[in-house]
């Protein structure tokens, strides 16, 4: 009798586990990475978010000039932050100034105009300002993700792997950092950071944000180090370093990636909040939170000064969150695909001997 499934190997064994044998059909012949990728791309929200975020990053980064040392890559946008063009007075409702020229009305004057996002009080192009702010915010987001990711993984691994006293000391450190109200410290340092620059602020926020990740990595290590494959590696003669990096860490990588994405989504909001309070990025630097805080009073008369940075903050945070959610689902082996009625009706029947 022919068993279902393809090649069963020379030993002719049936793939194990009743329902699970059938459930395994979905992942047959795929590597772990392929399975995760497949599951991720099935999550529609996450894929759209990934696409939107990538385009957003490319769009924002290429809009203005980029200076890397002496090298200068010109941006495609005509204004820079330093330019102070004349304020527009015409066509603005209620006698305001510098209103956006962006028009999406297909029958009328469809197009960008000279200042699609409008101008600020003194006439600077608001599109250029928002782009510059988004750049800063994105930079801060990635730096925070990298710094807290690195520290969290290292501290968590050491605590989880060695346990006992090392674990106790490191976890008390985590307790300490968690009990200190982060926003106040951030505010104090942020006040100083205004003079040192946004990179310092990002590094500092990263130094505070790793505690949750460290706890998670530690918990993963505690359960993974009891697995038999760790003993098997030890019997094979593997050193502690090799066991940590070759055997345990790759098995925890899924959760680590998920938490880091979520940290990044939180980071962009923390930066916004601090800048809004005046402790984060300080003028003449620009960030999205700072823009909102500066033009808060203009909300009733010139709301566009408020809307545009807000729109970018929400889009970035939402996209990163969605991607994190998609990754979480993709890495979770228990996550089952929901089956709709349509799926049921459309399904073919597997042809098998004896039916």
């Amino acid at each position: 009798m022919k068993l279902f499934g393809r090649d069963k190997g020379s030993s002719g064994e049936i793939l194990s586990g009743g329902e699970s044998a059938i459930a395994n059909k979905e992942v047959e012949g795929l590597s772990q990475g392929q399975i995760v990728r497949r599951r991720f791309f099935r999550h529609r929200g996450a894929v759209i978010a990934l696409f939107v975020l990538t385009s957003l990053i490319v769009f924002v980064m290429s809009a203005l000039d980029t200076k890397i040392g002496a090298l200068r890559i010109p941006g495609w946008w005509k204004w820079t932050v330093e330019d102070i063009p004349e304020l527009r007075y015409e066509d603005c409702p209620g006698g305001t100034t510098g209103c956006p020229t962006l028009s999406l009305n297909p029958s009328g004057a469809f197009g960008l105009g000279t200042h699609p996002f409008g101008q600020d009080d003194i006439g600077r192009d608001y599109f250029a300002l928002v782009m510059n702010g988004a750049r800063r915010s994105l930079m801060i987001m990635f730096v925070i993700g990298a710094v807290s990711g690195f520290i969290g993984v290292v501290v968590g691994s050491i605590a989880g792997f060695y346990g006992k006293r090392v674990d106790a000391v490191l976890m008390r450190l985590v307790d300490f950092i968690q009990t200190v109200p982060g926003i106040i410290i951030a505010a104090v340092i942020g006040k100083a950071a205004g003079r040192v620059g946004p990179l310092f602020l990002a590094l500092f926020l990263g130094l505070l944000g790793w505690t949750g990740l460290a706890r998670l990595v530690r918990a993963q290590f505690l359960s993974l180090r009891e697995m038999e494959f760790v003993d098997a590696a030890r019997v094979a003669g593997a050193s502690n370093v090799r066991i940590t990096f070759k055997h345990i860490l790759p098995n925890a990588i899924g959760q680590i990636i998920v938490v880091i994405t979520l940290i990044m989504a939180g980071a962009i909001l923390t930066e916004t909040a601090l800048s809004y309070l005046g402790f984060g990025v300080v003028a003449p630097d620009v960030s999205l939170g700072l823009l909102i805080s500066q033009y808060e009073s203009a909300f009733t008369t010139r709301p566009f000064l408020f809307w545009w940075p807000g729109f970018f903050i929400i889009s970035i945070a939402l996209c990163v969150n969605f991607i994190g959610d998609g990754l979480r689902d993709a890495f979770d082996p228990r996550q089952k695909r929901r089956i709709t009625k349509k799926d049921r009706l459309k399904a073919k029947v597997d042809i098998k001997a004896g039916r």
Partner: protein
Amino acid sequence: METNKSASGSLLKISHFNIDFWVDGVWYPAVIDMNMELAPGKVTAIVGESGAGKSTVALGLMSLLAANARMSGSVMVKDQEMLNAKPLLLRKFRGKEVAYIFQEPMTALNPLFTIGYQIVETLRNHFDMGPKEAHARALELITMVDIPDPHTSIEKYPHQLSGGQRQRAMIAQALACDPGLLVADEPTTALDVTVQAEILDLMRGLKDKLNSAILLITHDMGVVADMADEIIVMKDGLTIESGTADQIFNRPGHPYTRELLAAVPKLGASKKRVLAYKESSKPAPVLKIENVTIEYPKRGRVPAFVAVKNFSLEIFPGEIVGLVGESGSGKTTVGRASIGLIPIKEGSLEIVGKDISHATQKELFGIRRHTGIVFQDPASSLNPRLPIGESIGEPIFLAKLAKGPELARMVEDLLDQVELPRSYRNRYPHELSGGQRQRVGIARALALTPDLLIADEPTSALDVSVQARFLDLLQELQGKLNFACLFISHDLAVVDILAHRIAVMQNGLLVESGDRDQILKNPKNDYTQRLISAVPVPDPAEQRIRREARLALKK
């Protein structure tokens, strides 16, 4: 009992029952055109390897399957159609008419409630009962299933009970409403043989008392021989053969049934295995354990626990020693300590002439080349993120014996030795079946051609037919490579096939050790006798005699 009778005289009638699972746009059949009937007071067993669809049938009866399943055909319980029945009717029948006993009582009982509460809950769901009445009935049930000290046990949480007691509690819950049909899905697989024998006795007694029918699902032919009136053999969702126990065991019609029966290891059926050397001219032992005590140190408020006390054992080159005992007897601890995974507290331990009693990590590195271990659980003993070729090659790579193409060649040789295709080198563990993974485990253990192999229950997670092939392979490799082996198992029949000598452990103590035949045929110790008599034999007639003998021994 009159209530269990229906017009047609059968309690459960399944006809043309099909179950399919939806995976990625395709319906895969899991159960195909199944037919059976079960009368009150009878036991029907469904047997087959994992993946045959046994458990799927059990869950399908009461529509307990996941959302990606579809069912067709008819399932009649007491002349009521259960397929596509209204949820209210199903709920009325579940627990009251059809009760389930699952394999793993730890996960089937809710850890947040006492067992008494869980039984009371079942009772009050189905009957109009006051809390006091229900409590009294629960107490009665707990007494009936022989849980010691019912008055205090009723207030206990599942984690406070032993495995056997938990299974009894689950049986008590299942019996709460005097169900007409008891579906037992591998009820004793997670239990030790002695406890298994007691649970089976209990189920048999209750069946006779209540005149319930039992649908027994198991892969253990010994349990089937002990319990079943009728047997259904399944493979890949198809019913291969069905008939009375006598028919199936003594005159099996289908070749698959014969194969399945032949794969079951039988106690005392294998030939004596002889060592290459005489008793008088023994070479130096490969493993020498002398008066070893192993203690798990104090952890917070948990006091130190002595797992092994004053244990001595020697294994000589080319010899297989079987180490048997129930769960918690300390056999795995001995195995792990023998290769330096667990430190010992007292005594001395020697491997190939080197004393490792108090060795440091660096000193242990030296003995890694002489030892290998095959773990119990094929699912967790391979790193899921490494291709199996890399897992197998790791010991060679770390011992700096080979690198690059030479290492690849050695890995291929090892795969050949364990009869796996070379192309499997790049596969990941999750793509392999349990038996194949266990072969990978052997290949890795033998990578450095060790003098001593520790096999820690390597077959307990495998099907009988896979187990038979695995044991053949192990024997063949042992014959070729002539390593010494400490084979740890709770299954006496498996040890019987392999071992030259047998050591029996109980509660961390060595109770008896000696030649295989001496232990199995002429055990001196009480405990060994009980252990041997509790093993069910896959032959209904012989098993009945053994059962009666065991009950006599108990009195």
